[in-house]
């Protein structure tokens, strides 16, 4: 199975609207999933401009799946879902 790729948007809007604390995923993900999941910060994913403006930021992409209003818990849940656990 391919690695799951997690991209945390660190565009200004996402960061300001609650994404700052998602940085804790950088510690949690390697500990929890080892090398099954790859996490990286991403420049603005451009999602804030297509959807009802800032009201759904911060965004995180787990493979192609977009997690809106992202929290650490929601992201981990989506990873678990894709891993089938």
């Amino acid at each position, binding site marked *: 199975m391919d690695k799951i790729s997690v991209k945390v948007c660190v565009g200004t809007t996402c960061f*300001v609207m609650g994404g700052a604390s998602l940085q*804790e995923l950088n510690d949690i993900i390697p500990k929890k999933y080892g090398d099954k999941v790859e996490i990286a910060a991403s420049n*603005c994913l451009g999602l804030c401009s297509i959807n009802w403006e800032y009201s759904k930021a911060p965004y995180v992409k787990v493979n192609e799946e977009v997690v809106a209003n992202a929290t650490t818990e929601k992201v981990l849940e989506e990873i678990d879902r894709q891993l089938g656990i």
Partner: protein
Amino acid sequence: MNNNAGQAIRLKKEILVRIIKAFLSEDFKEQTRLIPYDMRPKGMEVPYRCCIYKERAIIKDRTIAGLGFAIEEDNETTLLSTYAQKALERTEISNKNLTVLQAACKGCNTNRIYVTDLCQGCVARPCESSCKFGAISIVNGRSVIDDSKCKKCQMCVNACPYNAIVKITVPCEEACPVGAIKKDETGFASIDHEKCINCGRCTAACPFGAVHEKSQIIDILKEIKSDKKVIAMIAPSIAGQFPGNIYQLKTAIMKAGFDDVYEVAQGADITANNEAKEFIERMEGDQKFMTTSCCAGYNQLIEKHLPQIKPFVSDTKTPLFYTAEIVKQEHPDAVTVFVSPCVAKRAEGFDNPNVDYVMNYEELGALFVAKKIQIMDCEETKYTKEASKQARNFGYTGGVAESVKASLKDEDKIKPCIISGLTKESIKQLKQYATNGECANGCNLVEVMCCEGGCIGGNATINSVRTAKKQIDNFTANSENIPKIE
């Protein structure tokens, strides 16, 4: 940042973004008037309140605070467009920095001890026997509390094996360390500005987001729009608040319209060195301890509620004081804006003629969002003066004490003790130190920070304390050490 109040904080930020966008638009007044309708358009599902009309009414009130006015003084008939106009015409800012949105205030249940339906009417009745004030009796086989006798000591709460007795709290009253916010005769919260130390705890504690900072953002945008030179002075804690590093942040702030940016950590180096000198003098004299003096919330606590500790408080000025002095010397014609993690610094800024305005991190973030500035895409711009590692760590708990220590050749002279967060308990502790003339465990330098975790726990921060500290540590790892004093 308080995660529990997440949605309420987000709403405030969204309103700030919209106010700034309105200011930057062709028609500030009309775009401001439309904010409640743009955020809650016709037919939209109602997210929080009873109906869309109340949602809009509350957004209107929040916008009034964002425009820098007191919501308490609103007569409800004045249009937001009129407020926008008044904000444009305003030439002075007020020193009452917090305002309560009574329409958003739930008028929570009064602070009291309450017996729930879980009461089993047991035979042992530990609640009755635990109460030292005779406030509990058993009526119809159930425990009943006489509120006129109850002292809220919570002995019964702890005694009940069914957890049937609870303490009902009013979050803002509970959070306020000095009893400055209370439900008034109407049952809604109101602030006693004589008592308020501007710590901002109530703004973070209220689950309805009913306490607002009165923003100066319009005043600042007006200065930027004029031909004046506007200089931002960024607090050390900012290094943990935005993506990228503080060099990219400088570029971003200048893109947002400022002419220059200074690190307040530059002033923190002076504060730390001066405090170190003062510490040596005081310890060679007859004092057994000294407390730090850089936190604005603590300074107001001393002024309003704790004068007895004054003889032990360092006379050294705050990092903002020294930085603003330097900026005004180098640019006498400039307008200065302090970029702050908290509301307490608004009061300090108001009292300091070298600080013209204060803008908090939420407002700076909103400005970036409104102007679509991507910090990560910004080039790095250097500062004229680089601050030390210790000064850059001033914004988290322990950082100030550490910088004073590192300023001394013999670092062992300092035995620090840290107060991270002014609460009813820690204020009691400080009172004790003042009365005794010494503190516990032979400690001789008390670092006092009003917010838990230090400035990175300020009410207007946008990152959590833990991730903010990590971000700052990563950044300061390569900074130079603070110079030692002679």
